[in-house]
């Protein structure tokens, strides 16, 4: 598998046009030694540069397979079609522009990746790199050729490396003409000089105790006459300010080479970058528990930010089902409570019933708001320390499971019975009204025993003030008769219950909700420190994007104040 962020980046620097290279940004998953690195640098008669690399890499037992290697080029003036690569003699087909190294080439080893514990030899060559020579600032008849071989991020490579680099000077250059530059520390000051099989003068520097993660510089100058004048770049402004290379690297360098100075700023940046730590965006994690289980459907509705009218209708259903109340009139919605009240009522059910029995409509509305404020606050307390997101997902799944139970049952009797059990959970569905209509579109619905407390008159007569249709008595498979309604009528009655509540009791849902959320989730007060630009603490105003963006904040956002 390709590991985009964990690849090895080998860098080739040619000082004629140094590339600024970004290091890999990921955790250290490669671990290997670079046992040997052999480089041949061919300074061609047309002024171009050809390179060959031979890298012997031993992967550690615990490292990831070495599957990609990126090698940087000195500038953009090369063609990937001039490059070839192989691993242990097996050709590599994947050569592409490196996404990680500016002016680099990506070598994808594919099935020839060097596995943990194994050793492999990567060979790479390229020809035709242009614009790599600079006029020698000390001798205008000479050109300067400076080169830094590949190095690898020290996060990935360890141990010593036997590095050998051979300069092949252009054909025709005689042994007494070229001059070498003082090499990097650790390499012999005087290179080994000889003629290669083509008769070209070569300089070879070798250090068997070098390493793969240090940048080493090598250089030579030779008469400009051996390459076309058009292949030679002009001196840079650094030369004009008279900085001598001896000051730079010491030694017996015989000439100035302007290309070096072009490289310095970039090198400086690169070294600084190398010293810096890798940056990952700041990340916070908070300690807390996951799902808050055990909430009632009404409390879950608060967490799920269901509309207020729906939540209060849910409470109405729950109190009716518990035998604590019955509806006297649907329009206007009027209820009466039983005396004494059942013991298993929740606090929010009690305050709701108290509010609903208030005859003064304005006070009733205010009391209902108070009841909702109290409910929201108690849910917020219960949610403290638990994840809202995970809790929401949990109750959404419960809602879906409730619907599934209803939808999967076969006979109207069982479907009605199942719905009676899970009805309050189905109401948490954002689409509960349409879904209720869909599910009960066909067939009769056998009414639950509490139904006549919700829909007065339905059990006694077929006429009267009820807005709902009158039920008929249908025989059940057990031989008894139970009241039933056509499914569509039943669904309509459930759904219109919410609308009744909105229009008949609380009026504008939006205004009613604002009256609640203004108290449960007031806008934080700002403080004098709010405009401070330092690393202190501002106060308020910036955190809560929406009035309903709190754990225990029910509002009409989702439902648009239906």
């Amino acid at each position, binding site marked *: 598998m390709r590991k985009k962020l964990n690849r090895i980046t080998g860098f080739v620097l040619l000082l004629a046009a140094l590339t600024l290279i970004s290091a890999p940004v990921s955790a250290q998953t490669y671990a290997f030694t670079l046992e040997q690195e052999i480089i041949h640098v061919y300074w061609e008669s047309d002024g171009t540069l050809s390179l060959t690399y031979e890298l012997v890499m031993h992967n550690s037992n615990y490292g990831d397979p070495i599957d990609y290697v990126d090698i940087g080029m000195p500038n953009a003036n090369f063609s990937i079609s001039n490059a070839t690569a192989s691993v242990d003699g097996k050709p590599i087909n994947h050569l592409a522009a490196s996404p990680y190294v500016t002016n680099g080439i990506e070598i994808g080893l594919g099935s020839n990746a060097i596995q943990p514990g194994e050793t492999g030899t990567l060979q790479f060559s390229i020809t035709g790199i242009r614009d790599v020579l600079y006029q020698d600032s000390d001798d205008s008849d000479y050109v300067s050729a400076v080169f830094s071989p590949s190095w690898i991020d020290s996060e990935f490579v360890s141990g010593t490396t036997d590095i050998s680099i051979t300069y092949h000077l252009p054909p025709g250059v005689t042994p007494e003409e070229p001059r070498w530059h003082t090499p990097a520390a650790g390499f012999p000051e005087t290179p080994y000089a000889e003629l290669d099989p083509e008769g070209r003068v070569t300089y070879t520097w070798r250090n068997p105790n070098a390493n793969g993660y240090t940048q080493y510089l090598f250089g030579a100058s030779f008469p400009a006459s051996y390459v076309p004048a058009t292949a030679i770049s002009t001196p840079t402004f650094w030369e004009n300010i008279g900085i001598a290379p001896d000051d730079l690297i010491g030694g017996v360098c015989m000439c100035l080479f302007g290309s070096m100075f072009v490289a310095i700023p970039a090198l*400086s940046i690169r070294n600084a970058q190398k010293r810096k*730590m890798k940056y990952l965006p700041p990340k916070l994690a908070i300690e807390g528990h996951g799902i808050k289980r055990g909430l009632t459907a009404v409390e879950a509705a608060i967490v799920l930010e269901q509309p207020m009218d729906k939540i209060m209708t849910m409470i109405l259903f729950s109190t009716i089902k518990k035998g604590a109340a019955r509806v006297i009139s649907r329009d206007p919605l009027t209820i009466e409570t039983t005396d004494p009240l059942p013991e298993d009522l929740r606090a929010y059910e009690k305050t709701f019933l108290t509010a609903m029995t208030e005859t003064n409509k304005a006070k009733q509305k205010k009391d209902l708001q108070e009841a909702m404020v109290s409910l929201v606050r108690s849910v917020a307390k219960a949610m403290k320390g638990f994840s809202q997101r995970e809790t929401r997902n949990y109750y959404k799944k419960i809602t879906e499971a409730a619907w599934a139970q209803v939808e999967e049952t076969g006979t109207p009797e069982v479907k009605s019975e199942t719905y009676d059990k899970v009805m309050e959970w189905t109401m948490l569905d954002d689409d509960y009204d349409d879904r209720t209509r869909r599910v009960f579109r066909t067939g009769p619905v056998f009414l639950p025993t509490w139904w006549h407390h919700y829909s007065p008159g339905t059990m006694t007569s077929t006429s009267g003030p009820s807005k709902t249709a009158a039920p008929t008595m249908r025989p059940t498979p057990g031989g008894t008769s139970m009241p039933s309604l056509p499914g569509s009528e039943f669904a309509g009655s459930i759904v219109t219950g919410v609308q009744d509540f909105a229009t008949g009791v609380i009026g504008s849902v939006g205004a009613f909700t604002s009256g609640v959320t203004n108290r449960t989730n007031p806008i934080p007060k700002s403080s004098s420190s709010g405009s401070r630009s330092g690393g202190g603490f501002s106060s308020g105003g910036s955190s809560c994007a929406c009035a309903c963006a709190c754990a225990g904040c029910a509002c009409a956002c989702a439902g648009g104040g239906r």
Partner: protein
Amino acid sequence: MANIIEFIKQAFVPGEAEKPLPTGVFHYITPPDHPRNLRLHLRLESDGRGLLIVNASTVLHLNQTAAEFAYHIIRQTPKEDAARVVQKRYQVSYTDALRDFNQLQEQIDALIDTPDLDPVTYLNIERLSPYSDEISAPYRLDCALTYQVPPGASPDVAPTKRVDRELTTQEWQQIIAKAWQAGIPHLIFTGGEPTLRDDLPELISFAEEQGQVTGLLTDGLKLGDSNTLQALLNAGLDHTMIVLHPEDEKNWKSLANFSYWAETMKEDLYVAVHLTMTTQNKDEFETLIHKLAAAGISALSLSAADPSLAPDLEKAQQSAYDHHLDLVWDIPVPYSQINPISLELAKDAADSTEVVNGAGIGWLYVEPDGDVLPGQGIDHVLGNLLTDQWSDIWKAVKDWRR
């Protein structure tokens, strides 16, 4: 010219790599006239990560970058300077560093200003199960200064272990200092009855001067004495939990009318109450909680003397919520392990991977002679904080948890 040449030479010198900030505990407290009442503790770990504790309660785990920003927030570094420093130390642009600094500051502000805001949903903060991350020291140290209890008090109110001696003031100060050096930002003084130690204000003051948050677990009787209360407040006490024993006539009578509670709560002190449910008092809890809420208490701790009381404890928990009281737990109160949240989580454990046990990582318990236990009532000595090195004790803690 020499400077230029030196610059050029330096260009070829790899230089020393940047390293994470050194380990340590850093503390910020809002000035007295600041509208916020805020204390932050940042503990930088050796690997560069950080632990930011807001008001000794909200625990945030920070990656290395966030820890570095939090360090500058606590040091009140101007944000532009902070971004510049981070830009120099990390491979990031100034613009990105400044943007991230601002974003982190906003996240922390939001956590503080809107505590009900779900940080995962709205602040892009990850959730971590409590006590699940590797840390270098607990968040809190419970210091049982004495196992003495007031005359006539039920022996049940004191831990059963008796110690040979109590540490002196100086010895406790050594322990407190050692805890601070280890990075423990929060101390709770408990007992026995810690107010029986005359040096309690001195110890609180010592801890506060270092930067630690201090709390007190007490039967509350002595807080009725205004001199004692003022001494504790002047020392810097941050919060107190009054362990109420309704069945103890003396204790209850003195507190039953709650009049002095109101006095106590006028002060700049966070007051919570603990109630232990027993078979004898379980039926009174609804009334008790109602009275406590009416008295102005904002937080409640509940535990049960017997696991069979779990259903009643659950009802008491719901009653606390209905009275809009914060529930606190994991405090070294009697029967602390049988608290509503622990029971709730244990009940859910069958379909959850989350197992919460903070003893030994969230807190440690120090007995009056300096012996360290993982938590109150866990009779496993991990060392002595007066005589042993912190590193040895922490190693013993980790071994014990394994």
